Every structure is written in C-alpha cells, then in structure tokens.
C-alpha cells in the first residue's frame, strides 16, 4: 500500500464524527465524541486538556494504535478506519513517528542502535548520526539508556521517531516526565524537525504554556473539541515555562 503524503495538498488528517467508546452498557466510557478535525500537512498542533479529555485517544487513533468506534479518519486520501491490523502496522511503519512520556527505549540497545532499529524498517531513513545530531546527542550515541538522563533518553526517542523521516510526529506528553531545562531541549528538537522536514506534528500536553509553541491549539474536554485557537505568533521553546 502506498499513501501519498508529503506532496499531497489534501489535509494530512481529516476526521468525520469520530467517536470512541470503551466498554458498553452503564460502564461505557465515551473517550471521544463526534470529533471533526482537519490537520494540514506540516502543521504543528498542540492538543490541550485535562486527563481523560480524549486528546490521547485521538492521537492514538490518528497513529493507528487504536480504532475508532464510529466515524471516519482519513490520512490524505486513505481511510484509516477501513484498514485491517496489518495495514495499520504498515501505516505506522511508513508514516508515523511516536514519542511517549516514558521514552520507551529498548534498554538493551545503545542510543545509536535504538535509532538503527527504526532505520532497518524504513525506506529512506536518516543516518543514526544525523538523527542524533538533530537532537544534540551525537556525542553520546554509544550509551545505553540506563547511562543517559531522562531528557537525553527522550531526545533519543525523538531521534528514533524522526530517523525514518515520518510524515507525522505524534507526541504524547513528551515533556511530562522532564524538568523545564531538559523539556525545552526536547521541544526545541521537535520544533526544529517540524520546520526542517515539514512533518505534521501533534503534541498532546496538559501544560498550557506549551500551547504557545503550536500553530493551532485544540482544547479538549469530555471527549469533545471545545475550542480551536490559532497562535498569531508562536513562541520559541526557550520562552516556555512550567
């Protein structure tokens, strides 16, 4: 399966009445309710909202990690909602870079090898050194995760996510476990990559100040989009505080 991405003028993501319900009957949890959203290619969006508001659920469905209960998700011209498991795996493999709060590096592989892991299944990847250079970690690329600080580990996770030059970067609380200084370095890396490669970037956070980084800020509550703001002036990561 090939999916037109970078050169396609259509929205990177387009969702129609997207809903997600966990469980059924009286214990059912409505994580997403009728979400309609367009995300342009290369856009950097911040998803903001309290815990359980549905922002991570949306991120997971867009990334092919989870399935919607109803509604549609389109990635350019391709309906993700119609895809089977294998196709979703392939979709993640080709187009998506994920970054989580807890880094999720493979502890038995060095920084370089963690990046290499992704390069093995990518079509035209960056070299491990290029990817780690982008996050300022080329010097420490032969260290194992246990030998790196939390911020460094998250930057390796960023490098691993971008090594395959993904069309989309999905970041779920990427600075959630980091202090300000290291968090800023991670956000700088994300912003730099978004700028350089025009990767569509969605950052989930509950930190309001991080919202100043995005072109648009989508506010979630109770599984719905409450408001969408557009930042006329985006703040550089170095000005963010939490």
């Amino acid at each position: 399966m090939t999916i037109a991405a970078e050169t396609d003028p259509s929205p990177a993501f387009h969702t129609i009445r997207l809903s997600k319900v966990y469980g059924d009957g009286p214990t059912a949890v409505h994580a997403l309710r009728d979400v309609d959203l367009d995300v342009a290619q290369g856009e950097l969006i911040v998803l903001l909202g309290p815990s359980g508001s549905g922002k991570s659920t949306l991120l997971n469905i867009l990334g092919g990690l989870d399935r919607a209960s109803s509604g549609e998700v389109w990635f350019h011209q391709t309906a993700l909602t119609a895809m089977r498991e294998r196709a979703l795996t392939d979709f993640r493999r080709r187009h998506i870079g994920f970054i989580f709060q807890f880094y999720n590096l493979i502890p038995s592989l060095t920084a370089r090898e963690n990046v290499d892991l992704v390069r093995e299944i990518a079509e035209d990847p960056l070299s491990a050194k290029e990817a780690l250079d982008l996050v300022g970690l080329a010097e420490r690329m032969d260290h194992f995760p246990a030998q790196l600080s939390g911020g460094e580990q998250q930057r390796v996770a960023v490098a691993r996510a971008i090594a395959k030059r993904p069309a989309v970067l999905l970041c779920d609380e990427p600075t959630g476990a980091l202090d300000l200084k290291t968090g800023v370095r991670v956000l700088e890396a994300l912003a730099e990559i978004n700028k350089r490669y025009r990767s569509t970037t969605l950052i989930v956070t509950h930190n309001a100040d991080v919202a100043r980084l995005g072109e648009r800020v989508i506010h979630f509550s109770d599984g719905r989009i409450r408001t969408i703001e557009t930042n006329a002036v985006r703040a550089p990561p170095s000005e963010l505080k939490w």
Partner: protein
Amino acid sequence: MVKLVARPLDRKLLRDVWRMRIHAASVALVLGCGLSVFIMSVGMRASLEHTRADYYADYRMMHLAASLVRAPDRVAADLARIPDVAAIETRISGYALLDVPQIVEPASARLISLPLGGRPRINDLAMVRGRWPDPAKADEAIVSEAFATALDLRIGANLAATIHGRRHVLTIVGIANSPEFVFVSAPGELFPQPERFGVVWMGRTALARAFDMSGAFNDAIFRLSPGADDQRVRSAIDEVLRAFGSSGAYGRDRMMSDRFLSEEIKQLTTMAIFLPAFFLVIAAFLVNIALGRVIATERSNIGLLKAFGYSDLAVAWHYAKSALMFGLIGASLGSIAGVVLGRAIADIYRDYYHFPTLAFSAGLLTFAGAWAAAIVAVSIGAIFSVWRAVRLAPAEALAPPRPAVYSRSAGMLARFAARLDAKSRIILRRIQRFPRRAATTVIGIALAIALLVVASAFPAVMTQLLSVHFSVANRQDVTLSFVAPREIGVMHAVAHLPGVISAEPFRADDVVLRHGRLEVREAVLGLPFNARLSRLIGSDGQAMEPPVAGIALARALAAKLHAGPGDEIEIEQVSGRRVQARIRVSAIVDPMVGSSAYMNIEDLGRLFREPGRISGAHLSLDPARYAAFNAQLKETPALAGASFLRQAERSMRRAFDEGVGVMNYLYIAFAAVMAGGVAFSAARVTMAEQERDLATLRVLGFTRGEASYVLVGELFVLALLAIPLGCVLGTILGIWLMRLFQTDMYSFTFIFNPGGYAFAIAFTLACVASASFIVRLGIDRLDMVGVLKARD
C-alpha cells in the same frame, strides 16, 4: 460456629498463586511426574519384596538346593542331621519332552516329584484350580498356571510326555503356582515361552518308576534355621552329597526365578532414584524462574509491606508460601498418579510372575519421603528469590526500579553483535545481561533433551542387543541339547534329521572359576573354529573365532573375577569328573547376552578329559521341512531340550516391549512435560519482562511476526545452546544407566544412535516451539498504548 476468616495477606497469596497458575501448573506437573515415579517405584519395590517374602514364607520356599545324579533315600537322614537344617525334602526331578498338538515345535517340562505323604513341606504349591494327585494313580499331574493358560489346558485334559525315553499319557488334575517358579524359563532360555515350557508335578512313586529312581532321589531342597550360616551348611551338604554326583548346593541367588525377581527389584530401585531426582531438579529451576518474576513485579508491594511494619521474615514467609503451595499441589498430584501407576504396574507384575496376590501399597514413609522431597525442591528453587525480597530495603522497593543496566560486550562477542540486526542484538544482550536465568532455561531444556536421549537409547540398545545376539552371534534356527554328553559321531545322525542344512557341535560345562579369592559359578562353552551358526562376539561387536588357546571371558564375568587377558585362573568342573585346572585368560568378549566363558571345543574336551564329546548341536533348517523336523524331534528321547531361535527372539522382544516399551512412553511423556514446562515458564517470563519492548516494536511499525522474533528468538537461541549440552548429558546419563541396569544376563552398552539424538532434539524443539507459540499469542493481545503509557 467458627468462621474462618482468611487474613488479607493469605488472600493475596491465593490470588498470587492463581495469577501464576500457569507457572504453578508447570511446577506441579513436573513434580507430579517425578514423584509419581518415586511413589510407584518405591511402593512397587516394597510391595514386591513383601509379596515375595510372604509368598516364600507361606509356601515355605527353600533356602538351599542341591542337584545330584542319584542318592539312596537313607542319605536324607544324614542331610537332616546337618546343624541348622530345619527341614529337608528329597525329590526326583527331570525333564520330559511333551507332545502338544497345539504347537508345531516340541514342548518340554520340568518334572518334579511330590512327597509320598502329601503336600510338600518345602516349596509348597499354591493351588489355583483342581486337586492334589492321588498317590495311587501314576498318571495324575499338576501343571504350572502359565503353561496351562498358554496352551489352554483344563482340568481333566491329557498330556503326552516322553519321560526317560518312554511315552506316558498324563491327566491334569490340578493347576498351581510355586514360589520356586515365580519366573519360569526353559534351560538355556532367558525368557519365558510359556507355551513351550512348563512345570509338571507328579507323585513320587510314578516319577521314581519313570526315571528308574525307586528308593533314591536326585534333588534335595532345604530350609534353614533362622540365623544359619548358609556357607557352612552348604559345605556340609556338599560333603554328604559329593559321593552322589552333586554339583554343589546353591542358594536362592543362583535360582533363576529368584534371581530374576531380585534383578527386577534392583531396577525399581534405580528407577526410584534416577527419574525423580531429574524432575525435582527441574521443578526447583521452574520455581526459581517463576518466583524470581513474581518478586520482580511485586517490588513495590514488598516495599509497602515492609513500610507497614511487616518483618523481613514475614515477607520471606509470605513469598515462600506460594512456592510451598506449588510443591504441595505437585506432591498431591504425584501421590495420586503414583498410586494409579503403581496399581497398573502391580497388575502387570501379578500376571507376569503369577503371584497368588500382589497388591500395590506404598507406605506412609514413602509418601512422607515424596512430600519432603517436593518441599525441599521448591524451597531450594525459592530460596534465591525470597532472599532478594528479604534484602530489598523498603525505600528502594517503593522507588521505581532502575532500568536494567546493559553494557557493551567485548572482543569476539562485540564483533559478532555488531554484525547482527537490532532485533537479534536485543536477544543477544538480554542473554548476556541475565546469564543466570538464561543458564536456568538452557539447563532445563538440556535436561529434557538428556531424558529423551536416554529414553530413545533404550530401544536402540535393545535392538542392537537382539540384532547382535540373533543375527551376528546366533544364526542357527534351533539348538539341540542332549540329556548327557555324546560322542561327536552323533553329529552324523543329527545332520540327517529332516530338513537340516548344516549342523555345528558345541560343548557346555558348568564350572567354578576362581581368581585369587574370587569365585564365580558359570558355564564354559566350547565352540568349533570356523563356526557359521553360533559364534563368539568380540569387543568390537563383530563375530570372532574362539581362542586358539586359553579361555575367553565375557566382560561381566571378567569384572566379577577381576581378571584380564594374561591372568591365570582356576577352573573346576562341578559335575562329572570334577576336573580342576589352571588356564590363562586369552581375551575379553562381549556376548551381550549371558556372561559365560568360552574355549575352543577341542581344548575344552581335552581339559575335562573327554575329547570328542559334545553337549548339543546348532542347526540351520530348510523352512520347507520345518514340520517334518519337529515331528521327528518329538520322537527323539535323548534330547534335553530344543531351543528355537526365532521363538527365543520373540519372547525376548516381548519381554523388552512390556518392560522397556511401557517405560519408554512414560519417559517420552515426562520429557514432554519437562521440555514444555521449562519452555513455557521461560517464555512467559520473557514475555512479561519484554512486554514494553515488544509494544515499542509494534508501535514503531514492526509487525507481529517481527516482534515475535525477539520473544521466540531468545528461547530458540537458548534451546540451541541446550542441544549440545543435552546430548552430552544424555550420553553420560545413558552410559551410567546402562551400567546400573546391567545384569548377569545381559550386558548393555550405550550405543551412539543418531536417530535417537535427532528425535530428542526435534521433540524438545517442538515442545519449545509449541510453548513459544502459545505465549506468542500474547503479542496479538498486547495493549500497546496501555503498556507504553504505564511507568516501568
């Protein structure tokens, strides 16, 4: 009413065990297998010993016996006067050729006289059906149960017998068993052929008339006073009977039936130790794997318990209890299975040995031993993990664990790792990082392979033994034994029997061999040079010529005498002229069956001053004239017996199949439990530990198959490492076990059997593959988001 309220910790314990039910089941099954064999073997051994002791006591089994040529009845009084002889009975004993219409070949029987006064005071009979013969009727007889059953002989049936050259028609009035003949095989045969050989008891007067033994006897049996000096009584008996052609008094150790029983009991002992030990070790390994994992996942709970004020000992006891529960479940399973297995085996034994009763019963001590062994095994398995829980400081336990620290490998391994893809590198580094656990898995799988190597070695060794004995060493169709040695000229008549293609003479003498202070009673066989039918087997397993000079000893015999080539030993005939001589050992041979001594036939004749006399002949037959040959044989009174090789082979094969065959299925089933249990536990632990890495791989876009590679790959690398270890271990165990199972009757040598190794490896890998496949299904159910969003 007392209400039992479980403490919260105990409720947690039960839930923990339920959560670990797969591990618990593996441990319980492995323990169950081992302990069932333990209870079965120890119980069966005790049951057999008790049954034998009771049978011998109830039916007054003889302690000593002596065969002689002929002694007048008055000698019995001299024998009775020997100190410590509690009872003596004289008998007339001999052999008869039977004409049984149901079978083509001639059958034969051991004839034994019953005392004039009624029932025997020694070696009494256990009557199954019918009555005792009427002393007034010469033709009435009792036959042994196995023989009657095999030929469907009923009370009142007639049996045509040629006794001492005269034809008699006997009437069967009773069917019985005797402690003397628990195991019955014809002279020269190793295994029972109940349709061709039986025991017939007749009235003393009738038998005396048939054998021309009126007023005389040729067999004496003795019971001794408690605490009697067996050796001294034997010498005294020999003193009395030497003049009457006695070949020496002997004890139960030289009675075929008792010897067989003793061998059986010995083998049960070997089995009671070997297999269970194997399984207990594996169970300890499995507990180690399972509990290690539990303690790792329970880190924060351990911290919490300690923070609440539970002592180290209380925490240790809490986790040790889960291991003990595994042990107790396994011990219960093993106890039940052991009794079921024991009862099934007891049925086989009862039928095979014709005991009047044989009930399997395992004593309380046996069960206590099994349960204690289970508790010790799981405790040893638990001790390291529990110790880890004890050592964990509460603050440290409550903090998230530090990520596993990996380091780069050095040298060769690093160069090798550099050439691998990232997924393979994950596998390699995990093995390097957790060597003890990897070793545990490797050893567990290796033990399963070893068990299978041993299990598949047994049939191969049997096949080898049968093929060497029946295709290389003995290629005759039939072996005839004469009642008494004959001149070599008789070969002319033998060669002219119907259908005889070729004939070779042999000579056999019962002798005592002495080397230094060691003494063994055995047979020495004289074989002709250039023999084509019955041949000697050298240590290379190939046929060889009999020694040009000196005597060749079977390996087991040489070991008993501590004699080797070049040593001079003493040889003494136990009957006839009782010639004594010294002779040099010229070679050690490996006949596989029997442990005789061998000479060339001319030397042996000259040694015993009977040149040119032979004991029997080996014949090859024209199959087309088989019936004619046998018809003629049934009319030939001068024969003590005829051994048909194909039938001997069949009976031997049957005996092996019943014994080794059944055990083999058990071994294979147990090995499957072992390999499956180890692989399953290892796979579950790997899966639990790598859940996060596997989810990461899936999120990064690796397919299920690719993610499975990391999980399954690790297990397979360990399984591959286990292969050479398992093969070596299996070989060592095999060699050791073959030695343990060696008896006077067979010498087993472990043979390298590539098919057996291939089977052991393939079977174990299949078990590992099945276990990995089942655990791998977990990857399909992996909650990627849940795992990755959770803190480690």
